């Protein structure tokens, strides 16, 4: 219990530090006093007030919500698919979203710049992600389909959507290509308050949904037969959870682009620290850790090559790939030692 208290304290401290830094740092630098004054409505710098209230705060909110959504999706998918490497990325939802966004930009001409066409690009990304999720869901209805089969279906979907995206990019103009590629980077500065609030609402709903099922997830960890013996409707929960995680990942990706590996990093960090934790702890801890991690990664992206701001997707990929390889190695070594 003490270790959990320390964990929450450290997370809260990081949250405060990253939030304050996120409010202060941006394209234009200001002092702490000016930032605090603008935040609480004081001062005469209307530009700064606008930056803080309409650009930086929604960006911070988006980081927490998107990080939370992707992490909760990751925890649930890893459980129901019985695979520690499962995430919205592995199932092809992100690639589906990238395909949808590229389709909107190139085929439907959704704005020559990413900002003017954000609504329609997001709609396309959402549709792409949902189509990908629906195909995976349809696969899950196939009698005898195993969780491993679903993962393989996800890999196939990823390859298919990536090929479609590349095909469209090949025939696009330079401007369209730039807009499509920029969208796939994954950037938290793409949306405003309405996008952030939408993702917050979806994340909170997903969090409550998964917490309600946390004991079922604990049972599913012991295998399908054991869980059924404990009264869990495994198939129903698997389908409902797949649908819920798809919606969470679809909303997060639709507005902010492809941000990979958060769904792997946060849950596995929590599992590494608290090896015996059940889903009642794992889900909220991963959600908060994922949010704080993404907030930190975004801040790093803004400060690393200041004044140039790196898309957060690049930072998470750099942090996520070693984690992914570490998990693969750990798994292989476990099998080798058996």
């Amino acid at each position: 219990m003490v270790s959990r208290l320390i964990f929450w304290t450290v997370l809260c401290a990081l949250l405060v530090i990253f939030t304050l830094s996120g409010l202060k740092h941006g394209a234009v630098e200001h002092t702490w006093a000016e930032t605090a004054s603008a935040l609480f409505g004081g001062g005469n710098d209307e530009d700064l007030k606008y930056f803080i209230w309409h650009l930086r705060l929604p960006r911070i909110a988006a980081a927490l919500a998107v990080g939370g959504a992707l992490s909760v999706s990751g925890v649930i998918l890893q459980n129901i698919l019985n695979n520690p490497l499962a995430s919205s990325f592995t199932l092809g939802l992100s690639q589906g979203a990238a395909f949808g966004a590229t389709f909107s930009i190139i085929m439907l001409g959704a704005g020559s710049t990413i900002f003017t066409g954000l609504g329609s690009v997001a709609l396309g990304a959402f549709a792409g992600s949902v189509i990908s999720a629906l195909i995976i869901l349809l696969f899950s209805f196939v009698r005898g389909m195993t969780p491993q089969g679903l993962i393989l279906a996800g890999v196939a979907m990823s390859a298919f959507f990536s090929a479609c995206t590349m095909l469209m990019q090949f025939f696009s103009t330079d401007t369209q290509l730039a807009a499509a590629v920029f969208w796939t980077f994954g950037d938290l500065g793409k949306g405003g308050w309405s996008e952030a609030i939408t993702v917050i609402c979806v994340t909170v709903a997903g969090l409550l949904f998964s917490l309600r099922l946390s004991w079922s997830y604990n049972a599913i960890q012991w295998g399908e037969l054991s869980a059924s013996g404990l009264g869990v409707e495994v198939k129903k929960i698997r389908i409902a959870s797949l649908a819920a995680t798809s919606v969470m990942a679809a909303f997060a990706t639709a507005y902010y682009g492809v941000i990979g590996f958060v769904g792997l990093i946060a849950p596995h960090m929590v599992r590494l620290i608290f090896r015996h934790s059940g889903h009642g702890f794992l889900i909220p801890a991963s959600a908060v850790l994922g949010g704080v991690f993404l907030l930190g990664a975004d801040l790093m992206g803004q400060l690393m090559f200041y004044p140039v701001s790196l898309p957060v997707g690049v930072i998470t990929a750099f942090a996520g790939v070693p984690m992914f390889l570490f998990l693969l190695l750990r798994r292989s070594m476990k099998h080798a030692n058996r």
Partner: protein
Amino acid sequence: MLTAENLTFQLKNGRKILEEVSFTLGAGELCAVIGPNGAGKSTLMKITCGIHKPTAGEVTVRNKKISGMKRPEIARHIAYLPQFTHAVPCSVYDSVLLGRKPHISWHPAQHDRDITDSVMEDMGIACMREKCVTELSGGEFQKTLIARALVQQAEILMLDEPINHLDVKNQLDIMDTVSEITKRGRLATLVVMHDLNLAMRYADTVMLMNDGKIIYHGCRDGLTDEALTEAYRTDISIRQVEGKYAVIF
């Protein structure tokens, strides 16, 4: 307490895994299900506890059909321990508490924790409540799983090969425990076993299966050498040695 009537389970290719299987199980009865590999023992268990739907037939618990029950309700009547269960990294206490799942809506109440404490005390595993399940010995792990099944507080207990891969001492310990809780709790217990000596030693009734059918179901005394020999396709005979059954093959 438990009645199975004309249970048939047929695969899509037409092969019948179970054929017209009927039996009843009363309170306080420990029934050993024996038979060669592929006889349909595990399938019978999965169908009886509602995990698989039978092609035909019906299972009733206290005159209520389980086909009309939802899974949590079935789990409140029947606790099922599958043949293969892998260890999950969690504490022994949490893994036993998980047995309260059919009774939990959001999170376990104090009542659920009290039941868990009491069962762990009874099973002699209270001393290792904080130990990780992956660090348990085979016998300790099996006891933990049985404790979880007991925490479900179901009146029917179904254990699919609970003593496989255990040494003799642990086999006897586990079967002593199962026998004792069956009598004390007036449970109806169905145990799939491969050790015929232990089956004859602990069971009140024996169910011999072969090719998806019940060849014999009744008290131990009625089981003949011929029935066993026919089912296992090898010479088997039962003898009484110093008041105990000995199966010779």
